[in-house]
């Protein structure tokens, strides 16, 4: 690959990693609520789905270690180090993502102290912790081979690790078996959340087998990518044999998955035409059966295209299974949309891992056991090297200037797009009100939560007009403030936010009416800032602030409060006056639309 492209890709990875770090600052400064889309009904979101994928795609580490050391398949040794590195970084990503996801990350050591053998999460915590250690020890020799570690102590450690490799590998396999499956077991206790097409009592086994298939195919993909990166020939014969092993695992996975669904009678649900069933179908057919068919044919398997396609499809299929069951198809009563910061952190972690991967590959003997790879230095002019515009190509100064320039740009964009100001002021993000629908009868559902109120607008209008003798007065009972040229401004036009008060003061308009620049003094008697402005009621005598409100208060209360305030007062009065207590009950207005209350039915019939 041309040095120019390598540089661009690295820049892209750096950009993602820096953006992730900026989002991480937001996460740790203001908490989960300000930085993520997680909520009370969806406490696990995008990060958990990504973590499941990280671990699944790291399955190649223990599988290849088993193949080389336990099964003595020495021919796979050339790609062993790379498999272990991939797993190490996959688990590293898992742990780092976990630190963002935990509400109290500084308590992450708690499972070491407080043992709870009945918790799957407890078992996973221990297994991941130990397996990460095992992977570090398995990879340590690669680092210790570097010139920096010539000291006899390091050499001693190196030899010790060499002796201990078999016990380490077997421990690693046992730990992987346990936690790869236990990650699936996490959802066993959530039948009320997981979609029936993905829920299965066999899910631990499914997770384990699919991790073998996906992990091996991730190694195939990595082989294609890294060899493309270096511009060398792909070791197609090795990768092809990995594909063969993965095909066995995939076949077993598909058989078990479909067999279990069939045995429990859930399979017909896969044909009901819902989007979940279509996703399931795509996952099983395109991400499972199709690559399986491709891999069974030796002719296809031995071509670059065939192998690459099946690797992509299998990885996509397993990633889809992990993401579907933990994110897409999970049942939730309120919507969940990952926030920008959440997405940036989710992507930033693997981007940083990829950079570490490239660093190791380019500086250590990862790809070739004999010597570190000598990658030709990138002889390109880096674009962002001001103030060293003539910095030597690829000199350290030039690289530092270039990457720090990139960082400044990315952080500035993050400052603009992340909700920093709202988070810092403790304000809620804007939650815009949706207008009521209907005319004679209004269906009021400001946040579209389906907890709607059926409001007989025409009936109220007519009755009030009759009582007051004037339709104008009747309208003004509720439509208390109207925009210019408007006879009855709708509630949502000023009470724009569902949950919080918003400023509706129109400076430009006031300025125009009062006579332009010469009239600033009319309101701003001392300084030309908002703090010194005159109180609204000095001109608008009828606009007296209510108790507890500041004198300068051009705020329209939250829609929720405005609507309750408007209706409840009057309803309470009428309930007392007409001796009809039911008028003051919540359910008079709030009953689900499917079951209109008798009162509403009566109103509708009138």
């Amino acid at each position, binding site marked *: 690959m041309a040095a120019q492209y390598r540089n661009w890709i690295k820049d892209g990875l750096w950009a993602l990693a820096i953006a992730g770090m900026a989002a991480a600052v937001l996460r740790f400064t203001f908490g989960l609520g300000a930085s993520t889309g997680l909520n009370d009904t969806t406490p696990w979101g995008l990060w958990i789905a990504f973590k499941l994928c990280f671990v699944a795609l790291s399955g190649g580490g223990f599988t290849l270690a088993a193949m080389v050391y336990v099964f003595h398949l020495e021919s796979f040794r050339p790609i062993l180090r790379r498999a272990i590195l991939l797993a190490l970084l996959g688990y590293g990503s898992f742990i780092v993502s976990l630190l963002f996801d935990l509400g109290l990350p500084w308590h992450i050591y708690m499972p070491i102290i407080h043992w709870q053998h009945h918790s799957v999460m407890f078992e996973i915590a221990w297994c991941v912790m130990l397996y990460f250690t095992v992977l570090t020890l398995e990879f340590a020799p690669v680092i210790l081979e570097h010139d920096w570690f010539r000291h006899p102590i390091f050499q001693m450690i190196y030899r010790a690790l060499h002796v201990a490799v078999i016990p380490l590998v077997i421990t690693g396999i046992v730990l992987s078996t346990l936690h790869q499956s236990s990650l699936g077991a996490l959802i066993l206790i959530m039948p009320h959340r997981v979609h029936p097409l993905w829920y299965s009592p066999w899910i631990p086994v499914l997770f384990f087998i699919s991790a073998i298939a996906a992990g091996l195919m991730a190694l195939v993909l990595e082989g294609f990518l890294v060899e493309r990166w270096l511009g060398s020939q792909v070791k197609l014969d090795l990768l092809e044999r990995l594909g063969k092993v993965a095909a066995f695992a995939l076949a077993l996975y598909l058989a078990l998955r479909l067999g279990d669904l069939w045995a429990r009678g859930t399979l017909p649900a896969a044909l009901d035409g819902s989007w979940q069933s279509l996703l399931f179908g795509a996952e099983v057919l395109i991400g499972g059966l199709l690559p399986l068919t491709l891999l069974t044919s030796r002719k296809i398997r031995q071509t670059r295209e065939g192998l690459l396609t099946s690797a992509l499809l299998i990885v996509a299929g397993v990633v889809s299974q992990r993401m579907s069951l933990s994110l897409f198809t999970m049942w939730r009563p309120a919507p969940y949309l990952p926030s920008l910061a959440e997405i940036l952190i989710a992507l930033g972690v693997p981007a940083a891992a990829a950079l570490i991967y490239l660093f190791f590959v380019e500086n250590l003997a990862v790809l070739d056991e004999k010597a570190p790879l000598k990658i030709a230095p990138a002889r390109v002019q880096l674009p962002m090297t001001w103030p060293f515009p003539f910095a030597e190509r690829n000199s350290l100064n030039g690289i530092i*200037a270039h990457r720090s320039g990139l960082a400044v*740009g990315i952080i500035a964009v*993050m400052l*603009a797009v992340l909700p920093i100001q709202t988070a810092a002021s403790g304000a809620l993000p804007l939650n815009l009100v949706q207008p009521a629908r209907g005319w004679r009868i209004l269906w009021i559902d400001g946040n579209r939560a389906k907890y709607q109120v059926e409001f007989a607008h025409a009936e109220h209008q007519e009755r009030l007009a009759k009582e007051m003798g004037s339709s104008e007065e009747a309208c003004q009972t509720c439509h208390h403030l109207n925009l210019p040229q408007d006879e009855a401004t709708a509630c949502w036009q000023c009470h724009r936010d569902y949950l919080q008060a918003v400023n509706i003061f129109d400076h430009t308009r006031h300025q125009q009416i009062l006579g*332009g*620049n010469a009239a600033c003094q009319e309101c701003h008697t001392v*300084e030309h*800032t908002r*703090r010194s402005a005159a109180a609204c009621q000095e001109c608008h005598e009828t606009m007296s602030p209510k108790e507890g409100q500041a004198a300068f208060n051009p705020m329209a209360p939250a829609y929720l409060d405005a609507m309750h305030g408007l209706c409840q007062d009057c309803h309470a009065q009428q309930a007392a006056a007409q001796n009809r207590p039911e008028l003051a009950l919540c359910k008079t207005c709030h009953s689900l639309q499917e079951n209109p209350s008798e009162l509403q039915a009566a109103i509708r019939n009138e």
Partner: protein
Amino acid sequence: MPTWMLIAKGAALRFTLGICALGLLRLLLLTALDMFAALRRAGDRRLPLGQIARQTLSWVAPLARLHRSRPAYSFASFVFHLGILFAGFFLVNHLDILKDLLGISWPSLPKPALDALTLAAIIGGAYLLLYRLYAASSRRLSKLSDYLLLVVILNILLSGYIAGRPWNSIPYDSLMLFHTLNGIALLLVMPFTKIAHCVLYPLIRLGSEIAWHFPPRGGEQVIHALYGPEGRKI
């Protein structure tokens, strides 16, 4: 909210301040890094640090030794900088924006005083512009960006000054939009143009002294070319 206020309080300002503050910080660090590298190459040679510090400080004063030949220019430049700094950092409206954004603030100066300083800065800036245009020596050294930057700064000062005057007939919001856009443009280009001297100033004298005293990096490349990377040190 009028457009200019949306810009002055919203994402655009956060982006601009990010580019400006971080960009200037990066510039400062990179320059310092380069100087350390130069000093390392220099080995045990000593710099006249006291003299450099004294010279750096003396440049700030108007009519110092360096400027004695052009007293009017020197004075105009001094007034120009003074106006920019005071109107920029001590106007109550600017401080309000900063307080909304970062929650930090410091006492402001009364508006009439700042108005006078701004007016002086406008006159000083106009003089600088005319000098650049009509003094042959200065014109020959000027690039397009030198004129543009001066014009942008004058735009900011003028529009800010006029906006607060009751006698002007241009709508307040239009003037403020112009003011805000010019201000944002200036902040954005600060780390990439000569205006970076606002943070690099303390290093300028030091930098030229280092360059004067010690061998430039070019010598190293010559050595490499002649003797290879392991070649003799100068």
